[in-house]
């Protein structure tokens, strides 16, 4: 007995085939739209990283931004102050190993140190239970732009002119004119000089985050690290000293560990939490959460920082991302950069070739 094989009998009519074809095509089209193939105008991580790569040139195996850098290591020693506001293990009175990286913005791993006034410090803290806190900080207190789209436009405007090798000043000026939110950054940049030392700089997380305490209360914060060492602060990297930062770092570590304080500033009601272009006015409650001690350096080609993606959204329990739109974009773009450089490292067929085609 097998009435199961044909209980209703075959259906006739072209519409049945049309329904099948239409349903399958609709699902496929939805997939194509969500995946961006059918939405070519949408800003994606790939387009941002392509733009960075065009500006910096293709340097297989290197980061697509902040390409020139050096691995460092040391520890963070919490003092318990921030534990009143966050359950993150790093804030307790413990020492947590740190794998860090000093770098210059830009996609060229051979850029001279005087080419930009900004320096960066990225940190990865790992707790004994494997929880991690990654943060990427820059030596300016505000970011030029507030959104991924504006960052993309700024990158495109900053593309070096093939004739001069420098960005077209007209295009850069047009970008700034169209983006008044860059005012605070421009005011900072006016007085900024390219430091000849990584260790005399303060580094700002720029984006706001939330600290979450044991009761679940969240507080918006921005953090920065402020150096203890002051000798040589204000000295400037000059043309003709393309690697002065590296040389300075080696000298400093020969003298001993270099120290910073992790300062955490709390937002007052009404402070912009989702806009990295705006500073929070003084006075604001700021606490010293502990000491960052950097003891050693390693070349970035072989050091422990090489294979780390300093995605600022890798956070422990007790710290959460804010709604700042740059954070999600940083996470997505860093992931794409990380995939490109690890694919080049792995020799995945087409990895470098594909990237070259997009030049």
């Amino acid at each position, binding site marked *: *007995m097998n009435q199961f094989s044909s209980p209703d009998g075959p259906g006739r009519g072209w519409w049945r085939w049309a329904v*099948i074809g239409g*349903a399958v095509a609709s699902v496929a089209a939805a*997939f194509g739209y969500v995946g961006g193939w059918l939405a070519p105008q949408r800003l*994606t991580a790939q387009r*941002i990283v392509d733009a960075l790569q065009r500006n910096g040139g293709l340097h297989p195996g290197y980061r697509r931004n902040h390409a020139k850098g050096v691995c460092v290591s040391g520890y963070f020693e919490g003092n318990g102050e921030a534990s009143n506001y966050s359950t993150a293990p790093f804030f307790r009175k413990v020492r947590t190993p740190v794998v860090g990286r000093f770098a210059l913005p830009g996609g060229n791993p051979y850029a001279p140190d005087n080419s930009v006034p900004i320096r960066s410090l990225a940190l990865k803290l790992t707790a004994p239970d494997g929880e991690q806190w990654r943060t990427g900080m820059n030596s300016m207190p505000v970011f030029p732009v507030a959104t991924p789209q504006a960052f993309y436009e700024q990158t495109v405007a900053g593309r070096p002119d093939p004739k001069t090798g420098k960005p077209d000043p007209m295009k850069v000026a047009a970008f700034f004119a169209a983006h008044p939110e860059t005012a605070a950054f421009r005011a900072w940049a006016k007085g900024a000089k390219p430091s000849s030392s990584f260790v005399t700089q303060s580094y700002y997380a720029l984006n706001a985050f939330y600290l979450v305490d044991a009761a679940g209360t969240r507080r918006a914060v921005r953090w920065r690290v402020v150096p203890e060492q002051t000798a040589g602060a204000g000295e400037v990297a000059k043309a003709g000293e393309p690697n002065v930062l590296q040389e300075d770092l080696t000298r400093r570590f020969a003298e001993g560990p270099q120290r910073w304080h992790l300062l955490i500033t709390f937002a007052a009601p009404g402070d912009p939490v989702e806009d990295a272009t705006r500073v929070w006015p003084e006075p604001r409650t700021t606490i010293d959460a502990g000491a960052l001690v950097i003891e050693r350096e390693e070349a970035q080609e072989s050091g422990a920082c090489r*294979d780390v993606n300093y995605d600022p959204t890798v956070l422990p*329990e007790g710290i959460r991302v804010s709604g700042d739109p740059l954070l*999600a974009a940083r996470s997505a773009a860093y992931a794409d950069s990380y995939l490109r450089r690890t694919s080049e490292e792995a020799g995945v067929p087409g990895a470098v070739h594909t990237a070259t085609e997009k030049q």
Partner: protein
Amino acid sequence: MMKNVFSLPARVLHWSMAAMIVAMLFIGVGMVASVSGRHATLVAIHKPLGIAVLALAFVRVVVRLSSRPPALPEDLPRWQKVAALGSHLVLYVLMIAMPLIGWAMLAAGGYPVTLGGGVQLPAIVPADPVWFAWLRHAHRWLAYAFFATFLVHFAAALYHALVRRDGVMRAMVGR
């Protein structure tokens, strides 16, 4: 009585996992193409949902092996029977392999494998950028293969339901 529908556990697993897996494919392809706030939200859903699919896939394999499914219609052309068996096997393999590759890929990239709420999974492979790259590409291309196989499965189900009307769809719907 002739058994012509799947067992209730098999049907519940099929439809709930169908929703989860299709959602996973859309979330995955969407999150890697997005730089908006959706990126973070989608990543936060993708990881625990993937682990849930993995856990349910093991249950499903046990259910599949312990209860005989209804036979395909006898008059179904042989190539379609082979295609049905083959695509089902591919779907079973992928619903186990994809979460494992995703998990291994994060471990190889040196990322903590967090599922939210403080839950962290152990690293199932050591951190290694070369492994990361290969696993990351495998995750993408197998996801495309997964989606393509799903589309074929979906089209075939509609073909059985609308054109052949042979009870195959009814066997999974249950009535």
